[in-house]
């Protein structure tokens, strides 16, 4: 499998919001993090991938299938976790297993039981009695127990405490050990994706601003801290965006290595995904 998901020119116009010619690919054996502010279009992209909404233009190829949301065979290989628990309050964890065993041909009840045990989820308590973290772990156990090839998760770690988040991220990392597996996870918690994502796509106001290998993106950019006079002397070609205060200036620079050679007297710090987001969303274009 070359790419688990290939998206080309995806467009969806709601009038007040437009997903505009979004293109990216999730290679097999990797984790793609879809980052962006609230309302940037992450959930819309995921809904289009899952066939929950119809897109106006573009092409989505899901596990080598062009059927919107995938045909039955594709869906058997797809694990889905949405931003909130989708299981009814009246159901117990064990009921969720019984229901899904009838809906997935490849459902592995023993594996589901193992996940319930691993995540410390009580089998006979109702979902109503679960905490947010427990609900999310139940959703992840449900998404993994039919042994999918592709996991699609929308804001799966939002609103969870660091311990649960780390537990869930570890699960993604062990899932991806198989080269045939892939994960697409959207989040606005960039530190999570910095830990696990091999690739990152940054959506800003419905458009892809950055996409590529996480390490390459982080190494390509740098955070420049300098005076106004220093900044004025910098070739604007290097500047992605700038932020100025009364006393100092900061800028997100591209081609970091070349920039450091040319402006060796200036200090350039490594960037985080959060820097990339904040500078793009809030910074001024040179």
């Amino acid at each position: 499998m070359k790419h688990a998901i290939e998206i080309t020119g995806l467009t969806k116009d709601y009038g007040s919001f437009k997903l505009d010619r979004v293109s990216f690919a999730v290679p097999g054996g990797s984790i793609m993090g879809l980052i962006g502010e609230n309302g940037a279009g992450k959930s819309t992209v995921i809904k289009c991938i899952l066939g929950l909404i119809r897109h106006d233009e573009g092409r989505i190829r899901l596990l080598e299938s062009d059927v919107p949301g995938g045909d039955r065979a594709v869906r058997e290989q797809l694990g889905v976790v949405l931003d909130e628990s989708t299981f009814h309050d009246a159901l117990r964890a064990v009921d969720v297993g019984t229901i899904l065993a009838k809906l997935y041909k490849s459902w592995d009840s023993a594996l589901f039981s193992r996940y319930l045990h691993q995540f410390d989820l009580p089998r006979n308590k109702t979902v109503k009695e679960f905490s947010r973290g427990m609900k999310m772990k139940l959703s992840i156990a449900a998404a993994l127990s039919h042994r999918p090839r592709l996991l699609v998760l929308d804001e799966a770690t939002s609103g969870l405490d660091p311990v649960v988040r780390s537990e869930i991220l570890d699960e993604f990392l062990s899932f991806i050990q198989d080269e045939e597996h892939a994960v697409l996870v959207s989040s606005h918690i960039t530190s999570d994706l910095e830990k696990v994502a091999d690739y990152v796509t940054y959506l800003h106001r419905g458009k892809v601003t950055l996409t590529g290998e996480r390490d390459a993106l982080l190494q390509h950019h740098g955070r420049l801290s300098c005076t106004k006079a220093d900044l004025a002397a910098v070739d604007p070609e290097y500047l992605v965006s700038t932020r100025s205060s009364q006393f100092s200036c900061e800028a997100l620079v591209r081609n970091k290595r070349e920039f450091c050679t040319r402006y060796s007297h200036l200090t350039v710090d490594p960037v985080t995904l959060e820097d990339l987001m904040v500078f793009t969303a809030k910074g001024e274009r040179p």
Partner: protein
Amino acid sequence: MIGLVLKDLLVLRKTAKLYIAMLSFYLVLALAGVFSHAMLTGFVALFTMMLPISSFAYDELARWDKYAAALPVRRRGIVGSKYLLALLLGAIAGALILISSGLFWLLKDTAPGEVLLTGLACVAAGLLMNSILLPLLFKFGAEKGRLLTMAVLAVIFLLGFGGGKLLGYHEFPEMPPCLKTLFPLILAGVLILALFVSYQVSLGIYRKKEL
């Protein structure tokens, strides 16, 4: 699809238990002669009609629809499962009518045919209502669907009773004997046709729905 019906049954088990407890209570009262068996059969029709509607409300509350639409059953399975649930509840209601008609026959010496026929006609009416309501629920969701249920019931009541009054009937007119014999068959035919058309309409609606 069976998994989705199983889900509905598991989600509805508490509500169903409540309905069955109330049904048993009414059965005892009807057997004690507090009111006629018609009340009981009316309750069974309500049971057939209301539980599929409740299942939509529970799905909406859990945000289940989006998740279900990404499952291998796809949208056709989701629509089919609600009709299967309605038929299954209709069958359960029919079985309850059969049991109660047996009890009336044994304990009250009421002709079993009478209880059975009115009871099954009520179940059929419940299923007919479902064939009108399910497409509305797929289109508008449980919240608006509930209001529309009230509206549909009000329209049926007005057409039935208001129309009867206008035509000068004070009670239901007696059916001609030939029609009386054919009535169950006609009702079954209308019911099958209504459910089939309703299923096709729901499928058309739900396939286009953005979740």
